[in-house]
């Protein structure tokens, strides 16, 4: 009888999921293709043994017959479909909707590790917020020569219009999703601060819902910290930023509309918070007050959770050809009659070249050392660094500073000589536009493929809210590079996601 012979289906019952079943564990069946390499493995120590907090998960998987795993996978798939958690694949006459790829095995993070992440991100957000306030007001950090002026003024996300503007509670970045990686040493580092319109939080929430339904007992026995209150926290954050004298603020979510790839998330969050989902065409401004058109006449808007980029938000101030925003919005904002969050111009602080200065920014404003470190970054405006980078392109990753979503990137070890030449030329032509980083060997977590467990590279995006204070729900979106050996986790390029369990 081969290993793959399915068990009789009668055996499968919920009790077979119970942790610590006394059956001997057939690791071989699960781990035939699980090879360790230099990267940190979330589940296995370098000697191949299972890390303690992963034991119960693996035992429970091994005790489930393969066809039972398959059945649960199918029921989870169905659950995603019926909840309408899909994204649209374009290219055919009519877009087809697919479910967002996900993996069934949760990623586990121990409480003490999470604690450090939480402290580190809080520190980082506070410092970056102080930085934005400073740059758009007194610019002390520039006067003190900590950050070169030209780096600020040449940033394409710098918004001159924000200078001298009071923002409510001095909060520029209320909603953030930072990308973390875990290095070889097991240490978490920040790869990117997404300070403009971070997305993906709806997947974090729906992944959790499906996992709870798929592995109820396992979930219970692990004692996972809850994340379900995120929409409520978000609503409270938005409410806390309402303009003075508006005790019952009208809060709305501004979406670019149905053709935006994150439209599902916009509708999901609006529904979960019970607020209106508006498009630019629903809004009008008059005497610096923003209104929305309702069947009951014009209704004043107090807080806008903005999911439209700066450029498209107000054709009078930013791009004139935008039909997605609301003419006059910026002036109403400037007058303090409406809160827009995140504020405009926050992209200045997540510019990939500015990123290299974040440790200095933390030191400058908080007089602390960073709790979570950066990835080593070469600024190509510096001649010595540039020379080093150009000589070592095949070992490095080069990124355009203003891009996101995995675009405008050169991954040295996977590149051709021609691509390297093109990038070298582009760097020489405009060094400010690029940075370089070492190729990262980031961590891998176990993922389920059929009835086999294989390792795949993962990152982690926790979601940070900042209103009265900094709030981080314990968890985040773990993105997975589903292709074997791939380092790209972006959903637009073959990535998926998995639930993240922060243990108590």
């Amino acid at each position, binding site marked *: 009888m081969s290993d793959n012979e399915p068990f009789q289906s009668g055996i499968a019952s919920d009790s077979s999921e119970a942790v610590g079943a006394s059956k001997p564990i057939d690791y071989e069946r699960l781990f035939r293709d699980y090879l360790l390499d230099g990267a940190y493995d979330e589940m296995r120590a370098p000697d191949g043994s299972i890390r303690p907090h992963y034991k119960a998960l693996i035992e429970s998987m091994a005790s489930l017959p393969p066809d039972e795993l398959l059945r649960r996978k199918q029921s989870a798939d169905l659950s995603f479909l019926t909840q309408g958690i899909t994204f649209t694949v374009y290219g055919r006459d*009519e877009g087809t909707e697919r479910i967002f790829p996900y993996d069934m095995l949760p990623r586990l993070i121990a409480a003490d590790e999470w604690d450090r992440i939480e402290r580190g991100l809080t520190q980082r957000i506070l410092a970056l917020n102080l930085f934005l306030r400073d740059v758009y007001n007194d610019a002390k950090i520039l006067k003190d020569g900590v950050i070169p002026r030209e780096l600020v003024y040449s940033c394409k996300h710098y918004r001159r219009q924000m200078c001298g503007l009071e923002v409510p509670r001095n909060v520029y970045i209320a909603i953030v999703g930072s990308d973390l990686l875990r290095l070889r040493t097991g240490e978490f580092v920040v790869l990117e601060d997404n300070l403009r319109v971070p997305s993906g939080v709806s997947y974090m929430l729906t992944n959790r819902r499906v996992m709870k339904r798929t592995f109820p007992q396992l979930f219970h026995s692990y004692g996972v910290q809850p994340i379900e209150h995120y929409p409520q926290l978000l609503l409270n954050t938005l409410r806390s930023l309402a303009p003075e004298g508006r005790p019952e603020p009208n809060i709305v979510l501004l979406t670019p509309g*149905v053709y935006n790839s994150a439209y599902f998330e916009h509708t999901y969050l609006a529904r979960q918070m019970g607020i209106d989902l508006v498009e630019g065409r629903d809004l*009008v401004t008059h005497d610096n007050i923003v209104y929305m058109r*309702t*069947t009951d*006449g014009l209704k004043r808007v107090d807080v806008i959770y903005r999911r439209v980029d700066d450029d498209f938000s107000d054709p009078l101030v930013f791009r004139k050809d935008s039909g997605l925003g609301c003419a006059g919005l910026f002036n109403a904002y400037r007058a303090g009659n409406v809160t827009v969050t995140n504020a405009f111009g926050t992209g200045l602080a997540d510019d990939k070249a500015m990123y290299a200065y974040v440790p200095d920014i933390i030191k400058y404003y908080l007089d602390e050392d960073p709790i979570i470190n950066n990835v080593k970054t070469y600024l190509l405006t510096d001649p010595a660094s540039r020379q080093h980078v150009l000589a070592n392109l095949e070992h490095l990753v080069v990124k355009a500073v203003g891009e996101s979503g995995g675009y405008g990137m050169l991954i040295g070890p996977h590149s051709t000589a021609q691509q390297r030449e093109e990038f070298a030329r582009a760097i020489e032509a405009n060094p400010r536009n690029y940075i370089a980083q070492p190729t990262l060997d980031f961590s891998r977590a176990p993922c389920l493929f059929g009835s086999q467990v294989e390792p795949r590279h993962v990152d982690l995006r926790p979601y940070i809210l900042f209103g009265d204070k900094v709030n981080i729900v314990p968890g985040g979106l773990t993105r997975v590079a589903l292709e074997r050996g791939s380092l790209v986790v972006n959903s637009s390029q073959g990535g998926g996601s998995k639930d993240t369990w922060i243990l108590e």
Partner: protein
Amino acid sequence: MLSRVADSLYWMSRYLERAENTVRQLDVTMSLLLDTSDTTAETRWNHLLTSLGNPEGVEWNGDMDAMARMLVFDGTLHASVTTCLNAARENARQVREEISTEQWQRLNRLYHQIHSPQAQAQFRSNVNDFLASVVDGIHLFKGVSDTTMIHGEGWQFIRLGRHLERAYSTATLLEVYQETLFAVSDDEDAGYQYLELVGILRCCTSFEAYCQVYTADLSPDKILEFILLNRDFPHALRYSIDGVRQSLEAIQQAGGRRLPDELMVTAGKLYAKLRFTSIEEILEGDPGAFLHSIREQCIQIHELIYKYYIHYSIQSALAV
């Protein structure tokens, strides 16, 4: 409620009602053509097309099957069932957060059904079954709308769209067929006459309901009375206009704003006309003109809904 959202709900509902109406009338026409009466296929099709508002791009071409397929599947045709369902789904997608998951799923399933690669083959193998399954899908959608959605303002806009569309299309249908209705002569075969009259009733799913009220004794006067003036039958004009009126009242109450009476007066007048006119009075006058004026008033109501709820001017709204 956002005006854009109300607009989408209203149109989602109107398009579904329109699709249902088209399917039902097509079904009746196809089955009447099975019998060899004197009425030619061309006459029947022209009646059908007139009653669907003479849709652009469709003309009788002698090939019934091709005509029927076009009216169901041709996505480039404004009046086709496919176009109506696409438009309903697109409107629903725009307000995904306002409707229930069940509604969205039902509508989605219907959409995928008519777009599935097997749809044309199913249509060819049994037209009746196929058309019936589309109507089923629409009925299921209405059912989940009524059971899974808060009966608030959004639901009232759905109901408003459904009743206004139905009233308009029923009035159009009667206007087209009323001449046929009374042109039935004595020398024609009683069997064919009967089929004609049943056909008109079936276009409004009213045959069984009619029989409950008047027995199977079919007469043109009674048919007209039933479809126009019955209080309790959902496809009767009076019932539809009553629904329009009730929804408009509920919508006005949901907002605190005092609106000019224009809209309520127009809807109220139309309702009063159907409530207090007897069939004898209508028949003594000009039934065609009567039906035509009903259609005009429906159009007027639609325009007033837009004027006060959807496309009002900013100046007028700020002045309040």
